[in-house]
């Protein structure tokens, strides 16, 4: 339905996106995952027509965004990362303005607003000033706003950012509901969010797509590549057998010796942290344990950041 071809974006001399290409199918829920600064917002802004890409092309069912921006924008609903509102407007006034500007005919405007307010649960705050809403309600108003004029495609930039855990669960529930009838693209830097909501994930890092697929597959594929680096002191050059016998270790590779230090790289099974067991075995064999680290590939680096930020959110 949406096709993105070789899209690059430069901010002055800095390239924020490097030749991104992907397709979004009709009715799909696609997650854009990546640490802060990976280029998610830039990509979404290009998709919504906020600014054009420096190179490349975006089309929706064959309509070129660069050639017919109005036609395409009419079919897209967008919730920016920090929804900006006119603080002196009441909720329903703001929605009325947006409905008019999005081209909802004046006769249907009233019922359209009622319907979307009901759907997003903001009917109770309709008379409140937008500038005085809590973050959770503001996000709901933003969602209602993005749904006006029934767009085929919904683009949500970090929809749960800055919400408390209860609000996060509610908004996710709402997003899941919306995703049933629409094509939905959402960005997040929180790993578990995509597995809860999305059918397919693109992982962005430093402006490039570094992986894509179903969330389950991605997670499995990643952990299979886990490696552990181990350094042992004086006399520790005969540990291969001991290490290989630890349950969960798939292979042991001995690396170059420097003076009295021996390095090993261990491939381990998914979902298991074997560091405790390894250190125990090494010490039991009577050799000094100098270093024990999980060695990660770039993709895993990204994931580490993502997992950490989720923990930060939960502990807050």
């Amino acid at each position, binding site marked *: 339905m949406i096709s993105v071809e070789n899209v690059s974006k430069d901010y002055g001399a800095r390239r924020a996106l490097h030749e991104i290409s992907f397709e979004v199918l009709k009715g799909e829920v696609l997650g854009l995952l990546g640490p802060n600064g990976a280029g998610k917002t830039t990509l979404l802004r290009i998709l919504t*027509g*906020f600014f054009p890409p420096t190179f490349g092309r975006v089309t929706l069912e064959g309509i070129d965004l660069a050639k017919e*921006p109005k036609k395409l924008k009419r079919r897209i609903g*967008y919730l920016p990362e920090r929804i*900006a*509102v006119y603080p*002196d407007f009441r909720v329903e006034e703001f929605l009325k*303005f947006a409905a*008019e*500007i999005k081209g909802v005919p004046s006769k249907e405007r009233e019922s359209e607003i009622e319907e979307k307010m009901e759907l997003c649960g903001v009917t109770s705050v309709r008379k409140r000033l937008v500038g005085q809403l809590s973050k959770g309600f503001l996000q709901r108003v933003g969602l209602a706003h993005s749904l006006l004029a029934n767009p085929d495609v919904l683009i949500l930039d970090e929809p749960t950012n800055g919400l408390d855990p209860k609000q996060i669960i509610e908004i996710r529930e709402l997003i899941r509901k919306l995703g049933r009838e629409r094509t939905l693209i959402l960005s997040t830097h929180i790993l578990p969010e995509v597995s809860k909501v999305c059918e397919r994930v693109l992982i962005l890092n430093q402006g490039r797509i570094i992986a894509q697929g179903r969330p389950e597959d991605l997670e499995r594929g990643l952990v299979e590549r886990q490696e552990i680096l181990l350094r042992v002191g004086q006399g520790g050059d005969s540990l291969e057998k001991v290490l290989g016998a630890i349950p969960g270790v798939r292979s042991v590779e001995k690396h170059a010796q420097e003076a009295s230090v021996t390095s090993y790289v261990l491939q381990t099974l998914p979902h298991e942290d074997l560091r405790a067991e390894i250190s125990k075995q090494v010490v039991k064999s009577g050799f000094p344990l100098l270093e024990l680290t999980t060695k990660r590939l770039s993709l895993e680096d990204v994931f580490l950041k993502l997992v950490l930020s989720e923990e930060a959110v939960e502990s807050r």
Partner: protein
Amino acid sequence: MKGAWAILKKDFFSFCRSWVGVFVLFSYLLVGGIFFTLFLLGYSQLSLQAAGQSYEGVEGLSLTTFVMGAFILNSGILFLFLAPLLSMRSLAEEKRVGTLELLYTYPLSDFEIVLGKYLALMAELALLFLPTLLYGVLIRLLGPRVDGGVLFSGVLGFFLLGGTFLAIGLFYSSTTENQILAAILTFLTLLALWIFEWVAGLLPGVWAGRFQGLSPFVHFRDFPLGIVDLTDVAFFISAILFFFFLALRTVEVRNWKG
């Protein structure tokens, strides 16, 4: 064009209930009212003297030209101080709050955004000027016939002058997120244009003409007297178009930056 209409309504609506709106309206009515009263008193004094001593030529002086003309002429100068307050928020505030991002993602062209913004400012100017027409009615009640043509010419001149001020203000508002800065830059520009009018008098020869040609006030002078010169109209319309398109280009810059 529906989008421009929606923006016009939204801006006009939020102007009407902002403190800036109330302040501008209040000060315009207050100062304008003082002007009007003074000119009216001045006219009655003059006509009393004329009746006593039969000055030559005074009998041709119409009430519309004398009172309304002077009033509109001075309204123009008063508006020099108020225009920056009207236009400062226009685009700058949307930028600062971030609502411009929303406007960019609506099915709207940049032209519609800027047009809606500009027309909203013109509507605010009209709201400001509307009560003034009551003064015309007041003169009519005092007795003499109101010269409709002269009044129309004055109002036309006022809107052309005000439209130019607001286009300049809209342009500055498009360049910054800081509305105070936008207001100051607009005010300084208008002040400079005003000063051109009397600087021109001090300069020799061709330079006088050149400087005068740049001052909107020089082009405005004849309108309240009932003289519509097409050169003046053309000056104002090209000035409005010039600053309107500068503002439009500034909004469009994001499309080709980087």
